[in-house]
């Protein structure tokens, strides 16, 4: 097939394809729960198979990151706070929280300490879950956003209440 033919097909299909893509993105959002706290937008939804709770943390300021899920609860020497997603009620955890983003060790100036953090910008965590047919669920979200020069106040156990009907709609 000639290149010009490909381009012509692309031109003719571009509008409907991309419009459909936009529509798909729009339709995707009603299943998503979001909140913003301490400079980080948090959006969560269940995977298509309903087996995983995917939570995306997006620091709103450029140059900011969140800490690794593997950081101890009290940080290192009290510094830093891990990213956490905990579930309760109709959502039950089936495994540890993970994130696909690569971890980098951020050294703290003037010390020999280094902190495991994700790259600047959004990171998505993955929590294997089981969903009960009935009942409400509750998700507790914790994190802290920092840049090398600055930190925002840590968010500890921000509650997201999910009534049964809403939980069903998320699936």
């Amino acid at each position, binding site marked *: 097939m000639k*290149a*010009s033919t490909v*381009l*012509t097909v*692309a*031109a*003719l299909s*571009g*509008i409907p*394809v*991309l*419009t459909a*893509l*936009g*529509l798909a*993105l*729009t339709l995707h*959002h*009603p299943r*998503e*729960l*979001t*909140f*913003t*706290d*301490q*400079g980080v*937008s948090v959006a969560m939804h269940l995977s298509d198979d309903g087996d995983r709770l995917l939570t995306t943390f997006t620091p*709103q*300021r450029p140059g900011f990151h969140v800490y690794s899920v593997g950081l101890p609860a009290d*940080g290192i020497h*009290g*510094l*830093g*706070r891990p990213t956490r997603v905990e579930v309760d009620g109709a959502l039950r955890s089936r495994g540890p929280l993970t994130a696909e983003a690569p971890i980098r060790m951020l050294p*703290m*100036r*003037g*010390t020999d*300490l280094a*902190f495991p953090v994700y790259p600047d910008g959004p990171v998505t965590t993955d929590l294997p879950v089981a969903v009960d047919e009935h009942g409400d669920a509750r998700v507790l979200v914790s994190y*802290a956003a*920092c*840049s*090398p*020069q*600055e*930190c*925002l*106040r*840590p*968010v500890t156990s*921000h*509650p*997201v*209440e*999910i*009534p049964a009907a*809403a939980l069903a709609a998320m699936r």
Partner: protein
Amino acid sequence: MRKCVSMVALASAAVGLAGCSASDLHREPAGAAHPLNTGQDQGQDVGQGHVPPLAIAAHVPAAGNHAQPAPGTHHAPEGSPEAITAPGTGTVAMLRPTGTTPFLAHSDAAGAAGRPVSSAAGKAGTPAHPTHRTVPPPARPAPAPPASLTSMASMASIASMAALGPDLAFGPQNLATTQVLNAVAAAQSDGKPVLLDFAAGSCAACKALENAMHTPKAQAFLAQHYHVVHVDLGDGDPSHLQIASPYDAYGAHGMPLLVVLGPDGSVRGDSAHAGQPRYDEAGVVAWLKQWVR
């Protein structure tokens, strides 16, 4: 012909992408679309406005060395609602916007009501992405003085607190508001500026700054040129957050936050706008030097 076809393809793709963007922009905000979608966003900073910084001025009657206010500032007339009297001290502390510090506003509608206004903005269907503006909005009325400041001022003993050294430690007994008032009062008597150091125990950057501030040269410089008040934002004390809020450029309590007040209580500078110091001895001293007159 190929060029023409290519242009058509690009235009088509652009229209398609625009469709995506438009749908994304017009998607329902979570709070409006889903009642479950956190009516608990009390900490939400979406749409939070930023109020002008407050200057805390402690006026000692007949003080001859009263510093000139910064350009663009004004003194509230004594006896006005802005004035807070500290009985028994002969001291009046006034809160007023300096109007001199530029800032970013997230939302005019939200900001007009002062902080915090987060959940209202979210529930009203405001897009979940704050719009940053670099043009300062019109002056807004100063928020009411924190109640805690009033009560703190009433029990403040300026004279006894003025003897505190430059390194006031964090702690549960840290009456930060009192310390701020006392530091400003002390600044009035000796002309040194006040350094407000907002930090939290879990903040790694704050620890780096703290280490740098505890180096010999930085300590000596602070002792000679500043009255220092540390305010712990990590303990959740609402009064501490109230102190920080007017100075917080991004509306989310970025830390560490250093604010330098002149003896008249006006803001000389802060790290949110001037940038953080380099977190070493020389960097901290250089940052502090720029505000000393």
